């Protein structure tokens, strides 16, 4: 196998990051504004009794899934046309989604902190009502771990779905559910989102820390490897 150019991998990640900065910043600002408005409306009408920001992750994680879909369909051909190999793109794209997941997790944690300050000043309880790795919004480390993994898993699933469609066309519709497994399994493994409730209804036992995090990481890694395996000899259209 030809030697890998680390500078090229960094360049791919760097261009992807700089190309998505504005979109990501805009989306997070939009979600923050929506939840601030929702919070203000609830406070002005029924009165707040639980954390509003606790529901903020649902929109972003599906946005990140769609961002992952675009990686192979919209970006890969432009990179290959500029001399980048699929392997370099897979590695650079991996760094990119890791960075996006970490920053997005930091935004989620920051949101809890800001909400905690506002609720504290107003004497309101910041009660969590959805399943998480953490039991309190001030457990910043666990908040970061949960959302970094959840967002990373959704990015990987989106990337795998997009790559399957780029390679197989509409036949890939049959692969959407298997390709979504990293996102679904990670939610389940770390007790986040709606899958734990579904699992409980079916009588499954949800693994907890640290096994859940390890399982989530393994699933994410498996999803990335699967994406690379589909990409590595994928023909690209020239028209």
């Amino acid at each position, binding site marked *: 196998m*030809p030697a890998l150019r680390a500078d090229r991998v960094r360049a791919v990640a*760097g261009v992807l990051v700089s190309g998505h900065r504005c979109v990501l910043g805009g989306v997070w600002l939009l979600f923050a504004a929506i939840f601030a408005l929702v919070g203000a409306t609830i406070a002005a009408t029924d009165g707040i009794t639980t954390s509003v920001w606790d529901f903020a992750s649902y929109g972003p994680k599906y946005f990140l899934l769609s961002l992952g879909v675009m990686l192979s369909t919209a970006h890969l051909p*432009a990179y290959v046309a500029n*001399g980048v190999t699929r392997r370099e793109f897979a590695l650079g794209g991996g760094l990119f989604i890791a960075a996006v997941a970490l920053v997005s997790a930091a935004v989620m944690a920051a949101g809890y902190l800001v909400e905690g300050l506002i609720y504290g000043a107003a004497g309101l309880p910041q009660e969590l009502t959805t399943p998480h790795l953490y039991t309190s919004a001030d457990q910043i480390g666990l908040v970061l771990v949960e959302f970094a993994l959840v967002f990373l898993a959704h990015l990987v699933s989106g990337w795998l779905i997009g790559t399957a469609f780029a390679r197989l066309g509409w036949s890939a519709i049959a692969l959407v559910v298997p390709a979504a497994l990293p996102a679904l399994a990670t939610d389940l493994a770390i007790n986040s989102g709606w899958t734990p409730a579904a699992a409980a209804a079916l009588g499954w036992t949800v693994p907890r820390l640290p096994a859940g995090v390890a399982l989530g990481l393994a699933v994410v890694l498996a999803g990335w490897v699967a994406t690379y395996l589909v990409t590595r000899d994928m023909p690209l259209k*020239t028209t």
Partner: protein
Amino acid sequence: MTSPDVVARGLTLRYGRTTALDDVTFTLAGGRIYGLLGRNGAGKTSLLSLLAGFRRPSGGRLTVAGAEPFEDPQVTEQVALVRDPGPLYDMWRVSEVLDFAARMRPRWDAACAERLVERFEVPLRRRVMTLSHGKKSALSITVGLAARAPITAFDEAYLGLDAPSRYAFYDELLADYATHPRTIIISTHLIEEVASLFEEVLILHRGRLLLHEDSDTLRSRGAAVTGPAAAVDRFVDGLTALGERRLGPTKSVTVYGELDGERTRRARAAGLDIDPVPLQDLFVHLTEDDARAAAATGGAS
């Protein structure tokens, strides 16, 4: 800049049941300008897509400096495939497209890019999606030339340009080639516009290499013999006639095959005119039907 040789041996590419390239063999020496000609569906884009690492061959080998392009970074960084409209980000501004290419292309010439966007009047602040077809073509060409890749292939990349811009492109290409010699491959339908640039010509026909010749040699292989019909008929008897036109008693027959000095002298003595055949006419004749193509393949290497 030294340009590596491009070598194809038994190169074959299939899309399902369709064979796009069929057992194609050639060697392109580095540092020359090649014309890649062929009718629609002849396999030109397929060949260039293999060169750029867009896909793997189904059979045979294509190598650049001895290595296969697919997923070899040492090769892919040496090849620039310029297409129309090209893989550009619609949402990006022109300046961002140039910044992107600058980061990805190790030999990027920013001054060249700046000069070309100015010459083709491509607005740097505009988003790609808002550009006209012609400006998108100009941007693709700018990225391709400024990449300074040792192998630069233009796949109909300039068809969106209007005629003055196309001639400006030919000027820029020649000037750039003179100062930075490298392998240039031009795939085109506008043969006569660019024929003077070609040092060698490859003609693909139904996925097979019909011929690969030095362009001067190719031109000398064809001749238009014009004169009184009876004299022309006698002269071309035994030669491969590619086509004929008749106007009253005068007849013109295009023949394929080199006319030696003796034949040329006899033609002149018989009052016949011998003229070179435009490359486009030769191309049309050669690819008009399979029988003619088969008759002409003696020159393929």
